[in-house]
């Protein structure tokens, strides 16, 4: 059986490209250009889904993505919106949310239980006794949701693009097309977007049996297509409006983030269903849905139908239906006044009877409840919303088209901050006060007459042009008056209910009445309690009726009820589209490839990639073996680590010394050229935030290093303070420009000496000394450091020469058995040296007194950041102190982990371990811990509780640990 009719002018299907697909096991024919729903409907298939809550059979309602009755899965993807998704050859489709198929769905029994499931029923049961809740919850969760997600669905990387334009016009109907043309004529760049596959809006289906709309569309479209200032994007919706005119345009292929200078919203209106019993039966659809089927897809919505209407649009629908041979039994007009003379006559001339002041009291289902058999028509009292059932008439039909009114598609306007007012002439919310740079035109603006919509589009574009600095005369016009397009209360009360307001969530009129009775009588509470508008179509077909119902319950005018907030997204938007191609920048040191080639186990260290340790292929080394070997190399001969990630900042200018003096805790004004000092940074509250080294290279030039993870922030803060303190200082961030490596261990001097003219002897270069000179032929900055070993040289060279110098040092150290070492060994080595790591051994609240760093704080300076807070803190008793500790010799129990707690004799938390490692060199377990100050002195004993709860004794001891070697008897 096919409902496909002869080729229509402007139809969207391609009859040269027939295709077949499967729906619920049945082979179906369609054409390229069909949506899934149009193809199914053309084949007489009417049950397209089951409802969310009651599992009622559903067909087409809006056929425009304003309801989600037809949700399907193709086995790969789920929740496919059949009304708008293009059908493709060989698709295998099933409706979601069914158990055993859309026709036989085993869950349809829930519909019979519905009287026992009143609004908010789940709040009222299942919780007594408490232990039963998990049982019920399990049942509820099984019933929840729509489609089943496919865990094997492939990850899609969708590009996200940026675009820029003067005017973004959303909606390519009569108003939008006119607006775009006018703006473009002013030389403005225009992006015009429409969610439909083709532009035109209602011009492409609302014909009322004649061709005026189609002619208008052809003219406008050809002008738009010929205009190079206009970029028309169809099959794409504006996802939301964000600050400063940012509008993401969502296409199937990805998102374009449009940054516009101004936005014209010409999004039109959503048709709203009149509410009567069984208005959800398959075959009962909105008038505009029926028109779309007819004109875009050349499909008869039904063979013999009734139009129920509360505006003139129903008459237009009737004419469109009649024009393709649908037998229209009657137009049931809920208004006592009826439509205009001319339109009424036209309908009557088509042989359709018109019943004014009547309603459909209920639609009567077919025996299988999968369609409509007849409708019960009664006189209707517009004031009371009651049908006079004593005078009912039954009209047999297989379909109903419904037209009762519209709601503005104003989501973008709301998101932009538009104040909306209610216009009683059109019975619609319309923009009352628009934000800067945002304009509205057409039906969303309450303008319905076709010619007026075009004028309104031109008016909006002219205003936008003036807003953008053009001087354009405003064409004044008065919108032609129309018969009220929306009915103020298109609801028919029915004692048995099933008169649906929200088809996504199965919400009936009585649910609102009952919610109000329970006190949920403002729109926001009602929304939350009934869940109206919370389904996947977000109230597009239901919010307006909900507001009207609540207004009537509260006996308030509609505008006093207000609207709920329309939040992004306009249509649900795929996670993959939004996530897109994420950018995850990484930094690589100059020696990166060398590390990889030599078995470096590369780890992310912030944004950097660093080797944790080296385990070359075939070496068979475990991580801990590698770390112990690397550590031993440093202790016994020589090792080298890539330290390029250190922050490196040059501080230059006549105030350089004075600046560091204020910035850091220590003294720099009197520092000698060629010497280095520890540079500890506090925040204003006195918390330690970084420590590094400052070298004075010249009277007015310092070279400062920071912790790797703080490089960017320290540089940024320096820049801020230079500006704030108005000092003569120039800052240069050399973090990336310089490669750095530390050669450490007793033989490190020999290795470095082999490649440099600098005198690196103890006499020539004592601890903390700094020199410049060539290393391996490259200009280098060399510093005698002692972070990982007593004897160590930190060598900084230009980044691009980093690999060369690294290789040269490795070569020079070959005979000494040089080994590269990674960050894991570095952590152990510094622990053996007794150096704590800021933000590893300290946390976001640690002050220098607690960190045992008093010696780095020059309280006698006039000022440094955090000093005033320290003056307060030093008056307060200290309650914890960072100390180095060792476990007992020969300890072989469960080793405590970092962040295990120190527990005092009263079983209270007394501190925690911040670092711990086994040192193979010392053959001891060593670490850092926060302990009460009285337990931080050398030799104090304290208890650590391990992961498993065992207590381990530890002894505080003063760093470095080398004196332990004596006890080792070496």
């Amino acid at each position, binding site marked *: 059986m096919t409902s496909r009719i002869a080729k229509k002018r402007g139809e969207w299907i391609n009859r040269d490209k027939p295709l077949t697909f499967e729906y619920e096991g049945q082979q179906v024919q369609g054409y390229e250009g069909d949506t899934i729903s149009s193809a199914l409907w053309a084949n007489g298939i009417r049950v397209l889904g089951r409802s969310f809550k009651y599992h009622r059979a559903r067909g087409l309602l809006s056929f425009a993505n304003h309801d989600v009755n037809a949700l399907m899965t193709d086995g790969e993807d789920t929740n496919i919106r059949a009304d708008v998704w293009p059908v493709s050859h060989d698709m295998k489709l099933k409706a979601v949310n069914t158990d055993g198929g859309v026709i036989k769905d085993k869950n349809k029994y829930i519909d019979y239980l519905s009287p026992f499931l009143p609004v908010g029923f789940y709040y009222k049961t299942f919780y007594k006794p408490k232990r039963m809740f998990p049982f019920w919850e399990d049942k509820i969760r099984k019933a929840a949701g729509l489609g089943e997600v496919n865990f094997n669905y492939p990850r899609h990387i969708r590009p996200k693009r940026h675009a820029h334009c003067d005017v973004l016009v959303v909606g390519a109907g009569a108003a939008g097309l006119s607006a775009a043309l006018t703006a473009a004529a002013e030389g403005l760049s225009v992006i015009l977007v429409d969610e439909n596959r083709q532009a035109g809006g209602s011009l492409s289906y609302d014909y009322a049996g004649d061709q005026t709309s189609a002619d208008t569309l052809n003219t406008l479209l050809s002008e738009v297509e010929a205009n190079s200032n206009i970029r028309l994007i169809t099959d794409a919706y504006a996802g939301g409006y964000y600050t400063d005119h940012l509008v993401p345009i969502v296409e199937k292929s990805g998102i374009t983030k449009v940054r516009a200078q101004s936005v014209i919203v010409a999004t039109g209106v959503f048709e709203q269903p009149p509410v009567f019993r069984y208005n959800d039966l398959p075959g009962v659809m909105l008038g505009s849905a029926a028109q779309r089927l007819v004109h875009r897809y050349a499909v008869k919505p039904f063979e013999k139908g009734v139009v129920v209407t509360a505006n003139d649009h129903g008459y237009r629908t009737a004419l469109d239906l009649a024009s393709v041979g649908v037998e229209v039994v009657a137009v049931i007009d809920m208004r006592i006044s009826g439509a205009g003379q001319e339109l009424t006559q036209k309908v009557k001339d088509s042989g359709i009877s018109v019943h004014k002041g009547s309603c459909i009291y209920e639609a009567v289902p077919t025996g299988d409840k999968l369609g409509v058999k007849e409708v019960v028509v009664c006189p209707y009292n517009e004031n009371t919303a009651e049908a006079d059932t004593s005078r009912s008439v039954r009209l047999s039909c297989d379909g109903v088209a419904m037209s009762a009114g519209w709601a503005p598609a104003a989501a973008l306007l709301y998101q932009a901050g538009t104040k909306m007012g209610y216009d009683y002439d059109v019975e619609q919310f319309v923009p009352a006060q628009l934000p800067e740079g945002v304009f509205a035109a057409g039906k969303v603006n309450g303008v319905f007459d076709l010619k007026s919509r075009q004028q309104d589009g031109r008016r909006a574009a002219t205003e936008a042009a003036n807003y953008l600095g053009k001087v354009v005369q405003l064409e004044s016009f008065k919108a032609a008056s129309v018969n009220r397009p929306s009915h103020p209360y298109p609801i028919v009360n029915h004692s048995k209910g099933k008169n649906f307001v929200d088809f996504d969530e199965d919400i009936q009129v009585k649910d609102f009445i009952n919610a109000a009775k329970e006190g949920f009588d403002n729109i926001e509470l009602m929304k939350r309690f009934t869940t109206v508008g919370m389904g996947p179509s977000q109230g597009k077909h239901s919010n307006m009726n909900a507001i009207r119902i609540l207004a009537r319950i509260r006996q308030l005018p509609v505008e006093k009820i207000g609207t709920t907030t329309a939040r992004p997204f306009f249509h649900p938007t795929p996670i993959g589209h939004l996530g897109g*191609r994420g950018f995850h920048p990484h930094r*690589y040191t100059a020696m990166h490839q060398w590390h990889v080639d030599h078995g470096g186990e590369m780890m992310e260290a912030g944004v950097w990639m660093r080797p944790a340790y080296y385990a070359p292929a075939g070496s068979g080394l475990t991580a801990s073996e590698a770390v112990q070997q690397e550590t031993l190399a440093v202790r016994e001969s020589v090792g080298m680590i890539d330290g390029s990630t250190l922050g490196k900042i040059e501080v230059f*200018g006549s105030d350089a010394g004075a600046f560091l003096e204020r910035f850091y805790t220590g003294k720099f004004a009197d520092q000698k050229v060629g010497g280095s000092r520890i540079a500890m940074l506090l925040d204003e509250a006195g918390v330690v935030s970084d420590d590094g080294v400052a070298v004075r290279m010249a009277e007015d030039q310092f070279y400062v290093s920071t912790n790797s993870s703080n490089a960017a922030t320290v540089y940024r803060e320096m820049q801020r303070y230079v500006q704030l303190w108005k000092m003569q200082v120039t800052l240069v961030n050399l973090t990336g420009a310089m490669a750095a490596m530390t050669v450490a261990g007793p033989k490190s001097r020999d290795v470095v000496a082999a490649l440099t003219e600098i005198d690196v002897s103890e006499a020539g270069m004592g601890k903390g000394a700094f020199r410049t000179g060539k290393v391996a032929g490259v200009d280098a900055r060399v510093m005698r450091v002692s972070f990982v070993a007593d004897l160590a040289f930190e060598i900084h060279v230009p980044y691009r*020469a980093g690999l060369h110098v690294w290789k040269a040092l490795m070569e020079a150290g070959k005979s000494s058995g040089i080994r590269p070492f990674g960050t894991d060994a570095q952590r152990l080595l510094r622990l053996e040296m007794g150096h704590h790591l800021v933000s590893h051994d300290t946390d976001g609240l640690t002050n220098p007194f607690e960190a045992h760093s008093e010696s780095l704080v020059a309280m006698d300076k006039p000022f440094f950041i955090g000093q005033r807070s320290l003056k307060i803190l030093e008056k307060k008793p200290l309650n914890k102190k960072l100390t180095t500790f060792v476990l007992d010799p020969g300890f072989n129990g469960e080793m405590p982990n970092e962040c295990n707690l120190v527990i005092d004799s009263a079983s209270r938390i007394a501190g925690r371990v911040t670092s711990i490692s086994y040192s193979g060199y010392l053959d001891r377990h060593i670490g850092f811990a926060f302990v009460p100050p009285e337990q931080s002195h050398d030799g104090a004993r304290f208890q650590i509780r391990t992961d498993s709860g065992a207590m381990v004794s530890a002894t505080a001891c003063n760093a470095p640990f080398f004196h332990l070697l004596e006890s080792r008897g070496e």
Partner: protein
Amino acid sequence: MQDAVLMSPVAFAHALRKPVSGEVNGMETALSFDAADVEASRSKTLSICDVSNLNRFGVKGPQAANWLQTAGIKLPETTNSWTPQDNGSLVMRLGNTEFLLEDRPENDLARMLNDTAVNEGGVHKVMRNDAAFIVSGELTPALFSEVCAIDLDGATLAENRLVMTVIAGVSATLLKQTLNGQSVYRIWCDGTFGPYLWKTLLSIIEEQGGGPVGFNFYYSLT
């Protein structure tokens, strides 16, 4: 060329493609990735070229402008603009008091300035390690629309303007110039981000049917 002292920050990122390498300005450089006609066609569609090896001189400080002028350098008058020297070197003004000069391969200006500049009196040398790229082709707008949030049409990149912005998550300097008669985009970023940016840009470029071109494509050295 294994013994070149200097390495392009991007070297390891393009090593996998086995370009024909050579030494330029003491730096190991990818001279070509493919046959000349293939690269020529790429450069019309969408291409990227690593030119990190060009010599640069950076200077900053309250007296930097004076110092450069004394050295006979023509300076851009406003921040965020650039001006070519008679020899073809570029001078970019990155801030009120910061400048970056980049030579063409045949010039020696940057090296000279690096050798003569002293760190005193409000003039401070800025050591550079830029990863530098040339992007060309008719699809460049499509590429930048994916990696850059700002509008590169119109005034932003008008003649002799430059922008400091974010490209694919990395801070970068960007300008448009005409090179060998072709309009190209120039990108500079911190070299440590170079391999990431090269890989990220190249992957999008290849998706769009473009690819890499070697240094010789723009600067014929033979």
